[in-house]
Structures are given as structure tokens and as C-alpha cells.
């Protein structure tokens, strides 16, 4: 939307958002009501605009199966499974966020599960992505997913006894005292650290206990060879002939403290010599309780928390979160703010990709690239610091605008960066892309096909390298991305080399967008002029009583977001970054869900890593470009 400089800015309330009648005309809603009748309890509207179908929780699997398999619906992509608890004693909501790659349609299927019967059927057979997402919903809310192959804690420790953290009756600081939490943390046994299947892989009876020093010890008496999982149920262990030349598989831990796992990720690898037979990732070592903590913060106070999740490209989180809350409020930011958010978003995409490039190169062995990319990142940090005061933790957006307007000369500095940056990408490409060692280590490693990638919920360059041209900036344009001229690189084989090429090309496209955005950065106010949402300038606050009251309420209470819910996503440097936000009309969110793309990306690692060498595990892990902050939240 455009206005001339002389017209006063008005906030645009999306009036049609309040009228739910058109959601009943949505083709999926029509099909569902026709087919399932009473199972569909009601249909509401997400603040973004697509319908939300509330169903009977006992039929969730059949409804979702229909939505995935019916050719007119074909919701082949499960973006998110999240739980939500409105208040103590209320039912727990389970949201399934769907996207159809073929039809380009978005839909949410939600159900309210009563506390006394907290069970729904699993959908892991429909989408591989549901595996970890349902585990997380179990971990945080206690909702049992009937039929799930491995329903155990994922973010909290295996032996966590304080309950289910995201429920409203769970206190923020946990149920036990701090000293008790420390004591429990340091007194973990082998069974608390390894999953049952891993203990079986090593040949332990599951009631084995470690020796007094906790060090490795011999398997329990009667442990079988080969490992239990390989046994055909009809065979008895005594009947098997042990091949004298075969090696026995070895189980090692890679991480959590490891230079090449890109964070505190733990991979339990079962190795046959150098070849990985099986990989079981353990996450949760960086679980920070962001989602719970943000329920205790005012809407603008959540922004600094969003920096710390993807600390490699923080402004993308700031921008996405502010965008989601603005959807709930029904406001559109000013033109200047919109273009500036695009500039900052693309700068941060470069920031994220540069770190990926540097750390991947150093993992594979090319150390100089790490130094070059970090030097470029320092230049972007200078821009961050000049604008926000912080290098990494920028907290640059506010609901309705930005923290402040740009300092004088910032746009010129940004233009200069955009002009000189491509030379570094070219230099790195000269070093790496045609390098025999680089190609030998990357080509045909960790390939994943398009259908598998969609089923696993991969997004971002990982998905595009497998040949699926899905980019949220093109599929559901926001911040005016449809007005910019840029391409989305798509690979073909889905191996590590394709992911590398896709990201290198994305950096070039980001510079392209940067150039266009910097050229069209308009003058004008940076914040909307609704003083119920943004802080008024002090001169006005001191001048008029209404403005002073607004200022007072904003400082003491914070903004109030009308009751509503939304699941809104943007394209971050790692993939589709989703924000599931529920408001009850108050000053704090009821539920603040962050769908970090790395969570689904890393869930697909075991599939990619099977039968690869240990060194390839590192290359594949690096190519997924994960950041543990948004996996563990």
C-alpha cells in the first residue's frame, strides 16, 4: 500500500479479519464438512486469513489422512504440531499446521483434548515430521500420541520428574527447589542418559546400573550378539552363528561438547568400523524454556528473547515475531519500516549463510574460508551495532515499527557493504566449488529426495536443494517481497554439494534484493502513529494528556493485543520460521510458539546419515545449517 508524504499515516485495521463468513467457502473446509460432518466442530479464522478447522480429537488421524491423501487437498507438508494450554484446568489444544505444495494453500486443523483423556492418535505414518513434533508436544504438555514409535522426552532430560513445563499449572521456575534441581542434574545414571534402544544396542539389560565411577563397564551377563534389534523374532540367540571375521558394532557419542556438531547436539552413533549403521540424535541440551518464559513477558519484552534463539541471524526472528503480533493487531507497518525490515532481513540472511559457510568449510578442513567469512560478518556486525547498539542480540523491531530510525549514514554504509561483498563470495567460490577435495567430500553425500524432504518437514535451502521450489517469500509474500525481483535457487540431487550451491546462490540473490531495497528506501515515519501500540515521542507525551496517558499505559502495562490466534511464518536463513501466538486480549501472550526450521531439519539427520562414514556425518550435519538455539528453544 502506498501513501503520499502529505497524507497522515493511518493504521489499517484489516476489517475483513473480523468477519469469519468466508472461511466456510474455503475448498478444504467444504470438503471436510461434507465428508466428516459432526467431527468438524467449528471453523474459525487465523489472523493471517486462512481457516482453522476445529475437530473432534478422537478423529484427528482420519481427518489428517484425508487432507493429505485426497488429490483435491493434498496437504503434503506438515509445518508444525504444537500444543497450547489456555489456562489451568482447560483442555489442551493440539494444532496441526498444514501447507499444500501442489495447491499452495494453508490450513490449520486443531482439536481440544480434555485433560481427563489426554490422548490422540499419532500421525507419524502420514508425515515423518510428526515424529519429533509429537514428542515435543508430549514432553511439554503430556499429550499422549497413541501409536507413536518412540514417545519419550526430547527437550527435557529423560528422567525429568517435575511434570510438563508448558502447562499453565507448572510454575515458571519448576516444582523443585534450585538446590534439588542441581542435585538431580548431577546425579544421573546411565539409563537416564541413554534411550532404551541404545542400551539394547550395546547389549545391556535395561536394568543395568553403572559402576561407582560411572565409567564404561562390561555388558550384563547374557547380553546377546548380534545386538537385539537385529534378531529375527523367530530365532533364538543361541542359534546364531557368529561370523569370525566381522567386527562388532561400536557405540560412540558425538557431542554434546564437540567442535563439529555446531552446538550442543548429541549424536549417538552405532558404528561398523567407520561406517554409521545408525544415528540417534539427542537434543535438549540447550533447552532454555523460551516459550514458557515468553508467557511471562509483555509483547515487546518478548523481542529480546527472539534474538537468542537463532543467534546467527537474530533480526529475522525479531522481524518475524513483530510481524506475527502485527497480524493479531491487524496493523500494517509504514513503508519505510517495511523496506527497512527487508534490508535487515536480507543482511541477516547473509549473516547466517556466512557463518554456515565458514563453519562448514572449517569442518571439512578449509580453514581460511572461516577467516574470510568472519571478516565479512564483522562488517555486518558493524552495521548492526551502528543501528541497534548490539552486534548479535539486536532486538531491533517493536510491535508496530522498529526500535528507532536509522542513524545518518547507515544506508550509505549498507550500500557500500552490498557493493563490496560479492567479491568475497566470488573468492570463496573460486577456492571451493571446483576444488577436487571439496567436491569429493560433498558430492553424493547425504542425498535426500524431494518427497522424503517434504515428508520430513525440511525447509529452506535443504528443501530447495532437493528440487522443491518452496520459499515463503514467494509462496506467501510478506513485507512486499512480491515487489522485488529475485530468484530462488533450486537444486536437483539434494546432496551436500547441492545445498552448498543453493546457499551460495542465495547469498547472491540476497545482495540483489538488498540493492533494490536500499534503492527504494523511502523517507517517512518509521513507526505507525497509533499511540496505543507504539511509544509516542516525548514532546507529544508532554504536550497532550491523551498521549501522556498512552505513554503511561504503554510503559507500565505494555500493549494490549486483541484476543486471537495466529500461526505466521517467514523465510529465515535456515528455513520456514513459524510463530504460533495466542492472545487473550491481555498484555502478555498466552502461548508463544516458535517453530524453528532447524528442529525439523535435524530430525531428518538419521535418515541422511545411514551408511555414511563418520567424516560424512560431520559434512551432512554442517550442510543442514542448524542452530541449536532454535532446535532446543
Amino acid at each position, binding site marked *: 500500500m502506498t501513501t503520499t508524504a502529505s497524507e497522515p499515516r493511518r493504521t489499517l485495521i484489516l476489517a475483513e479479519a473480523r468477519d469469519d463468513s468466508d472461511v466456510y467457502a474455503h475448498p478444504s473446509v467444504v470438503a471436510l464438512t461434507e465428508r466428516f460432518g459432526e467431527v468438524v466442530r467449528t471453523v474459525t479464522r487465523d489472523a493471517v486469513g486462512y481457516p482453522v478447522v476445529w475437530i473432534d480429537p478422537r478423529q484427528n488421524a482420519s481427518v489428517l489422512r484425508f487432507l493429505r491423501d485426497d488429490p483435491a487437498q493434498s496437504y503434503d507438508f506438515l509445518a508444525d504440531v504444537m500444543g497450547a494450554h489456555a489456562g489451568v484446568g482447560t483442555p489442551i489444544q493440539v494444532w496441526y499446521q498444514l501447507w499444500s505444495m501442489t495447491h499452495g494453500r494453508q490450513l490449520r486443523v486443531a482439536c481440544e483434548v480434555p485433560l481427563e483423556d489426554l490422548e490422540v492418535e499419532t500421525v507419524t505414518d502420514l508425515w515423518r515430521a510428526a515424529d519429533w513434533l509429537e514428542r515435543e508436544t508430549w514432553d511439554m504438555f503430556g499429550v499422549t500420541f497413541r501409536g507413536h514409535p518412540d514417545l519419550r522426552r526430547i527437550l527435557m532430560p529423560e528422567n525429568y520428574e517435575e511434570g510438563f513445563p508448558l502447562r499453565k499449572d507448572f510454575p515458571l521456575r519448576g516444582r523443585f527447589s534450585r538446590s534439588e534441581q542441581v542435585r538431580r542434574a548431577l546425579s544421573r545414571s546411565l539409563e537416564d*542418559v541413554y534411550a532404551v534402544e*541404545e542400551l539394547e544396542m550395546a547389549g545391556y539389560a535395561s536394568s543395568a546400573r553403572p559402576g561407582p565411577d560411572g565409567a*564404561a563397564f*562390561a*555388558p550384563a551377563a547374557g547380553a546377546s550378539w548380534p545386538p537385539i534389534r537385529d534378531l529375527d523374532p523367530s530365532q533364538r540367540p543361541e542359534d546364531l552363528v557368529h561370523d569370525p571375521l566381522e*567386527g*562388532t558394532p561400536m557405540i560412540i557419542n558425538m*557431542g554434546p561438547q564437540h567442535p563439529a556438531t555446531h552446538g550442543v547436539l548429541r549424536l549417538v552413533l552405532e558404528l561398523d568400523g567407520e*561406517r554409521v549403521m545408525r544415528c540417534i540424535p539427542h537434543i535438549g541440551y540447550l533447552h532454555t524454556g523460551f516459550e514458557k518464559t515468553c508467557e511471562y513477558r509483555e509483547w515487546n519484552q518478548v523481542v529480546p528473547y527472539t534474538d537468542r534463539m537463532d543467534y546467527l541471524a537474530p533480526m529475522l526472528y525479531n522481524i518475524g515475531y513483530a510481524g506475527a503480533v502485527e497480524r493479531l493487531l491487524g496493523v500494517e507497518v509504514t513503508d519505510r519500516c517495511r523496506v527497512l525490515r527487508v534490508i535487515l532481513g536480507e543482511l541477516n540472511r547473509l549473516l547466517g549463510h556466512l557463518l554456515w559457510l565458514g563453519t562448514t568449510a572449517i569442518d571439512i578442513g578449509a580453514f581460511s574460508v572461516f577467516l574470510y567469512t568472519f571478516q565479512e560478518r564483522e562488517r555486518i556486525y558493524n552495521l548492526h551495532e551502528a543501528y541497534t547498539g548490539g552486534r548479535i542480540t539486536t532486538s531491533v523491531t517493536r510491535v508496530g515499527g522498529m526500535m528507532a530510525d536509522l542513524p545518518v549514514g547507515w544506508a550509505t554504509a549498507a550500500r557500500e557493504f552490498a557493493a563490496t561483498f560479492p567479491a568475497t563470495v566470488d573468492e570463496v567460490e573460486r577456492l571451493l566449488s571446483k576444488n577436487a577435495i571439496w567436491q569429493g567430500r560433498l558430492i553424493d553425500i547425504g542425498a535426500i529426495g524431494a518427497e522424503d524432504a517434504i515428508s520430513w518437514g525440511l525447509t529452506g535451502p535443504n528443501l530447495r536443494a532437493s528440487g522443491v521450489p518452496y520459499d515463503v517469500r514467494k509462496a506467501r509474500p510478506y513485507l512486499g517481497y512480491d515487489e522485488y525481483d529475485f530468484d530462488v535457487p533450486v537444486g536437483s540431487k539434494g546432496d551436500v554439494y547441492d545445498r552448498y550451491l543453493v546457499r551460495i546462490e542465495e547469498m547472491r540473490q540476497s545482495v540483489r534484493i538488498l540493492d533494490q531495497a536500499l534503492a527504494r528506501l523511502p523517507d517517512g515515519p518509521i513507526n505507525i502513529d497509533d499511540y496505543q501500540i507504539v511509544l509516542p515521542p516525548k514532546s507529544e507525551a508532554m504536550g497532550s494528556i491523551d498521549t501522556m496517558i498512552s505513554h503511561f499505559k504503554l510503559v507500565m502495562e505494555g500493549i494490549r493485543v486483541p484476543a486471537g490466534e495466529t500461526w505466521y511464518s517467514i523465510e529465515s536463513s535456515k528455513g520456514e520460521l513459524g510463530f504460533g501466538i495466542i492472545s487473550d486480549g491481555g498484555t502478555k501472550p498466552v502461548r508463544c510458539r516458535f517453530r524453528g526450521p532447524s528442529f525439523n531439519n535435524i530430525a531428518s539427520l538419521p535418515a541422511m546419515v545411514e551408511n555414511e562414514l563418520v567424516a560424512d556425518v560431520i559434512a551432512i550435519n554442517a550442510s543442514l545449517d542448524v542452530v541449536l538455539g532454535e532446535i532446543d528453544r
Partner: protein
Amino acid sequence: MLEPYLGILILAVVGVLNAAGMMGASHLLGSRRPTTVKASPYESGITPLGTTRERFSVNFYIIAMLFIVLDIETLFLIPWAMSFREFGLAGLIEVTVFLGVLGVGLVYAWRRGALEWD
């Protein structure tokens, strides 16, 4: 008469003194605080699972053997390279034969797939 070897003697003595000095200094000046956890195997901070008394894959052995052979070959090449002028043509022919013999072995290993894992 033995003067050319004085340099080697000095090198050997300095080398031994260096290594012994470093180890001796650490031994004398370092702390000694053995605890059971400190002596336990390191596996990224997690208690290791399973024993290490497993049967290793034979491929590790093959890679190690190949490495030793080629490393010793390099070791033998160095003295020749230092004084190849004195050895002249005869030396060149000898070292070519040496490399050829080992090269045949390398080609054999290559063709048999010993350089691939598996």
C-alpha cells in the same frame, strides 16, 4: 674425521634434552590430583556405553598398514633427496626401482579397493 657427524650428535643430544626437559619439568612442577573421573575415558562429557574391547573392523588395519609402508618409503626418500647429486645416475636408477616396486604395491591396493572404506 668424524666431524660431519658432530651435527647429528648435537641434534640428537638437544632433541633428547628438550623432550626430557619438558617431561621432567611437567613431572616436577605439575600438580598431581588423580581422581577416578579424571582417569575415565572422555566421550564428549557423556559416560561411554559399551566396552572398547570390541573386535575392530579389519579395514582400520589395512589403512594403517598402507600408511606405515608409504610413510617409511617417504622416510627413505629423504636422505636420497638430500644428496642426490652425489649419488648421480646410479642413485637415480636405484630410487626409481625402489619407487616402482612400491608403486606396484600401491596400484595393487588401489585396484583391490583397499583405499575405499569397505
